[in-house]
């Protein structure tokens, strides 16, 4: 987190929120909305969104016919038959 300079941060779309990091460090303010906590939360949310997107990309792929064929063949088997 500390690898990024303030300039870098300000350029992101989330910059507005993150810029406050340096100003409001009084404990009473921090309790309400700690900018660095907000930033961390935002990033975690972003990672979460991407993670789901990544997973859903495969979920949304068409299922290869093979799957259904295998299942159909298995279904046609008489019980007890292996």
């Amino acid at each position: 987190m500390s690898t990024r300079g303030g300039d870098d941060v300000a350029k992101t779309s989330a910059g507005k929120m993150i810029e406050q990091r340096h100003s409001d460090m009084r404990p009473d303010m921090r309790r309400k909305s700690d900018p660095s906590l907000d930033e961390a939360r935002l990033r975690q949310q972003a990672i979460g969104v991407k993670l789901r997107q990544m997973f859903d990309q495969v979920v949304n792929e068409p299922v290869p016919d093979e799957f259904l064929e295998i299942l159909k063949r298995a279904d046609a088997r008489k019980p007890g038959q292996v």
Partner: protein
Amino acid sequence: MEEKRKDTPADPAREAAFKAELVALIPHLRAFARTLAGDPTSADDLAQDAMMKAWDARASYQMGTNMKAWTFMILRNQFYSEKRRSWRQTQLDQEAAERTLVAVDDPEAPVALDELRLGLGMLPAEQREALILVGAGGFAYEEAAEICGCAVGTVKSRVSRARRALQGILEAGNYKRDGASASEAMRSILDDAERLSALR
């Protein structure tokens, strides 16, 4: 509940319901397999094996319970028992990480997905799996714990460690890859996420 004897003819309606539910789960099994196995082909083999194991065990499944969690558990067990058989697999982890999940080389796919995939590949397997089940698979901690055969607290701590590690990796640009600069990946993930949530 009541003992199902081997020679009892299966209830066709139940079989059909089971099959329909199983078929609906295939895409999810494929996606989960893709996060475990090294490449799409072995992932599909794994998903098929799991599907067949689930089908063969259908008599022991209680209709109305969580079939998704049940099949994911079967798939996971299948994967690790195969993995135990071939130690070579562990050697392939790093290599695998570079091909995992989204194997289709889609030039349109946002760069950040790639970075995320590589970052995920750098996490210890049990952290990656916990994060994927909870963060992408939509499972509750309790369900993920059941799937992984561990305590709920263990899953929680794995997920939180995975999140922190992944964020660190993405921000440091600490994945193996040349080109894209350090925080480029994180920025692009943030931008993308913002765009996506704006669509909702």
